[in-house]
Every structure is written in C-alpha cells, then in structure tokens.
C-alpha cells in the first residue's frame, strides 16, 4: 500500500511537470508530441528523468553532507567501518525494484510502437544520397510518387545570403515536396534506402526508423492535429547527411482528398508524351530545377565546382564536347570519384539538366538534348 502511495506521488509530480509543455517552448524538453503514442513516450521520459533526479539528489545529498561535515579541516576524525551487509543488500534490491517499475510501462508502449498492422495508408520512404523518395502504396492516394529534396537555397547555407538565412524560420527543414497525410488516420511508413543506411525521423510525430538498403522496415504514426511537422535524416549517410530533411504535412480529410486529386492531375499532365518535342527554353527551365536538386551540392549553383574536389561545369570540356559523352557520364557516374550514377532520374529530367549545363554560365552550345538521346544510351 505504501508503494501505491509513493507511485501516486510520483505520477502527480510527473503529470504536473509534463503538463508544463512550456518547457518544450524553451527547447529544454522533447518537442510537443502530436500523437497519442508520442504523449506516452513524452510522459515516460518525464517519469524516468524525475526518478533519476530524485535518486541523484539523494545520493549527492549524502556526498555533499560528507564534504562539508566530515572534513579534516573541521576536525572530523575518520571512522574505520568498511562494510554493512544490510545497507548493501538494500541498495542493491531497491534500485532493482525501481528498474522493474520503469520497464513495465515501457514494455507496453514499445509493443504499441511496433504494431504496424491495420494501417489506413502505407507510404514507402526511400532514402537516397541525399534526398527522400516517397511512394504511396496503399490507401487513399495510392500511386502518388515523388522525390522530396531540401529546398533551402544553397546561398543561404554557404553564407552568400546570410540575411535570407536569418529570415528563414524553416532553414534546413523545408522540402520542395512535402509528405502529405490525413489527420487521425494510421499511417504506416515503410523505409528502405537506395545506397547507404539513412533514417527517417520526425520528432513531433515520435517516429524514427532506420532505412537499410535492400531491406524494408516499417513504423507508424497517427497524427492528432493538422499541422506541419519537420524532421531530418538521422543516420550518417555521407556529406549531405544534414541536408535531407523530412516535412510531413498533416491535413484534414477533405483537404487531403483535394491534394490527392491535384497530384493525380499533375501526374497525368507530367506523363511524358514520347513524341513531344521540347524547346531549348523549356528544357533549360526544367533543367535548372533538376540541377538545383541534384547537382548544385557539388558542382555549385554557379557551375564553378570546388577546386580540387568537384570539377567546374562552366567551361568544362565534357559539357562543351560531344553530347553522348556527357550523357554517358551522367548516366553511369565516374568510377573512383564522388560522381554518382543518375540513371534513376527520368529521360526528361536528364535531358533537361544536361541541356541546362550546356547553355548556362560560360557555356553556350545552343544545343538541346532530347529525352530520346538519353533513352538511347541507357
């Protein structure tokens, strides 16, 4: 019965302190959770921390008491005891009991966290170096598919546009295409990766799951309020590891349905007519976007590259030389260098970005590269 009394007291303090969500405002605590499971995790953290603080204060209360009162300089003479079986047994068993008390609520929460069954919508998140790809596999929106890359301009990161950075509340936490989900529905996230291990992490939704190449993992969340929740890749994956964020936009059911419809229209419109002839201007416009998302990190938005590390494209022999050589290099990458293969981009995307490089900065080939030329070299 005494145990119950103590537990009640702990929970009272815990709920009082955890309701001080203001702590989250001062960024001293976990982000305010927006899922029911997240609230359980938040509370679990609060309880464990409080127990730790209590024990800490107790133990070091003794230590500091000794420091002040058992000093030689105040004349204290040393006792010579060095054993006390009863005390030693007590301070072995009591922590043991406390730990069991902690493990029990944790067990229930963990089992719930791993139960991904009966989801309403399933979305596969694929980690790339260095962006995410999303495929809506099941539920409302199935078939929607897009890449999601960091949309903060490189100039804000490199320091060219410090004012822009300082005025940007979502610096490094914004993407060109957000993951959109409806509120109140169980969303199952499958994670995998195309190259190295990444991790999908959104603190406000209390999810983190490693994305392992060649394997599928899964996790889930159910957002309780509409809103925009931002996270980042949480497993070192190379040089741009800090620059591949995740933005989850939780919408009301009606807004979500409207979004799904708009995505599907977009997809139809974007479906490439294999016979369509693209103008140089169209390719360049499209190409600039693709360049920003896929190439600028290394070759820089100025096309000047990084001397010693990444070659300049402006004035480059490859870019100004025969089309098929540049196409081959972009499709296959270059062994022994950091230049990856970009064959996962579509024919149109590759044609447009290569056209862009051949007609930008100091390059004026005047040539347009057709999607057909890309296809021919695959």
């Amino acid at each position, binding site marked *: 019965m005494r145990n119950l009394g103590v537990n009640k007291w702990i929970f009272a303090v815990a709920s009082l302190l955890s309701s001080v969500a203001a702590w989250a405002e001062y960024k001293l605590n976990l982000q305010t959770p927006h899922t029911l499971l997240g609230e359980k995790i938040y509370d679990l953290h609060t309880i464990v921390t409080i127990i730790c603080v209590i024990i800490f204060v107790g133990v070091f209360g003794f230590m500091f008491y000794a420091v002040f009162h058992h000093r030689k300089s105040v004349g204290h003479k040393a006792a010579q005891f060095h054993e006390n079986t009863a005390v030693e047994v007590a301070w072995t068993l009591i922590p043991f009991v406390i730990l069991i008390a902690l493990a029990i609520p944790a067990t229930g929460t963990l089992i719930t966290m*791993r*139960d*991904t*069954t*009966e*989801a309403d919508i*399933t979305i*596969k998140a*694929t980690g790339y170096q260095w962006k995410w790809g999303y*495929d809506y*596999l*099941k539920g409302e929106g*199935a078939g929607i598919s897009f890449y999601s890359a960091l949309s903060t301009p490189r100039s804000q990161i490199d320091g060219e546009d410090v004012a822009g950075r300082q005025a940007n509340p979502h610096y490094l936490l914004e993407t060109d295409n957000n993951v959109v989900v409806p509120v109140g529905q169980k969303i*199952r996230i*499958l994670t*995998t990766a*195309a190259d190295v291990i990444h991790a999908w992490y959104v603190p406000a939704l209390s999810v983190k799951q490693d994305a392992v*190449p*060649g*394997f*599928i*993992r*899964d996790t889930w969340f159910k957002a309780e309020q509409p809103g925009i929740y931002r996270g980042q890749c949480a497993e070192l994956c190379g040089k741009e590891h800090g620059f591949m964020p995740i933005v989850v936009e939780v919408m009301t059911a009606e807004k979500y349905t409207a979004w799904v419809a708009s995505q599907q229209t977009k997809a139809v419109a974007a479906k490439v007519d294999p016979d369509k002839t693209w103008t140089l201007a169209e390719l360049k416009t499209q190409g600039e976007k693709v360049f920003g998302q896929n190439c600028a990190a290394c070759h820089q938005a100025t096309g000047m590259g990084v001397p010693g590390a990444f070659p300049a494209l402006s004035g480059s022999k490859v870019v100004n030389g025969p089309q098929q050589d540049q196409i081959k290099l972009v499709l296959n990458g270059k062994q022994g260098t950091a230049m990856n*293969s970009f*064959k996962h981009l579509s024919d149109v995307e590759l044609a447009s970005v290569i056209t862009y490089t051949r007609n930008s900065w100091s390059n004026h080939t005047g040539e347009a590269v057709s999607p057909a030329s890309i*296809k*021919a*070299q*695959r």
Partner: protein
Amino acid sequence: MVGGECVFLWSHAEVLLVGAMINKRANNRMMTRLSIFAAGMFGFGFLLVPFYEKICEVTGVNNLIKPAVAVVNTQVDVSRWVSMEFDANAHGLNWEFKPVQRTMKVHPGEMVQVEYDVTNKGDRATVGQAIPSYGPNHAGPFVRKLECFCFKQQLLQAGETKRMPVQFVLDGGLPADLNTITLSYTFFEVQGASLKPTKADGVNS
C-alpha cells in the same frame, strides 16, 4: 631442480633464479592460453556471420531466398483476412520493376499467386537477383514461398519484359495480431553475370 626439497639450503641467488624460472614457465603458459583465446574470439567474429543467418532463419527475421518445405495440410482459415501489400525496388539496375497487384486480401492457408512485371530498359542484357524483405520483419517465416523468381538469378535481354510469379501460402500459425504484411523485393545487378541458380536448386521460375 636445484637442490630438490631443501629450499633453505639454497643460496639467495638460487632462490631468485628458481623463482624466476617457475614464474617464466607459468607466465608462458598463461600467454599461450590467452593468445588462443584471442584467436578464438577473432574466429568468433566471423562465426557471427553464419550464427546471425541461423538466428534470422529460426526467428524468420530476414528470410533467405529458399523455397518453403511443401506445406501439407493447408487448411484455409476463412475466418480471417490478411491484407498483403506488394512492393518492388531496383537498385543500380536500369530495370522497371513493379508488382501487378499492389494489394490483396488473403486467407491464411490459401495458396496465392501474385505477379511482378520487370522490364530491362537498358541496351544490354543484364542479370539480376531479387532479395525479399518483409514488413514487419517477423512476418517473414509465415510467408511460405513455394515458387518465386527470387530463387534464381534472372536474365533479361535488352528491352525484354517478363511477368514473374510468386506463389505462397500464409502459414496458419500467423499470430492473430498480424493483419498487414508487406512483401517487398529489391533487384540487384549480378556483376560478371553468369546465370547460376542460387541456394535453392531445381526450382523453376
């Protein structure tokens, strides 16, 4: 030994010398044992590989590409539906790979066939190997595959499309709370392609 039992008759130097010799032998013995232990632990590191495979097999965490032992007594459990999802990925291969059916509801014990379409969009023949993965992981052992394109490497000529089946049965022992299973395949390119069957021999695609 010097002087035998009467240690107190030995000179001071002899005592020290004998002590050192005894020590040396004991020390060398200890060093040999510990070196063997260290070498053993190095081997243990490598042993962890088959160990890990065995554990995964037993717990079904990451299923190997083996066909299931033929399931006898397949009583179809019509009282229960399991929602299956099918997913496909291609790594470093210019192949288009997708499931023909994205989702399907099945009964445990029921023989199910699904198909995947794969197209070689490149201009040269390539060989690929599909590796399965399950979400959640522990669903793996309950998806008993009888026929699967993942049992063999697959050769696709340039531009060729194949429709490949997977035949499986969900084991009746599937836990009651497991109602959604994702079966995902990732195709990898087999370098230096020579068409060899993989661990499960003799199973045709």
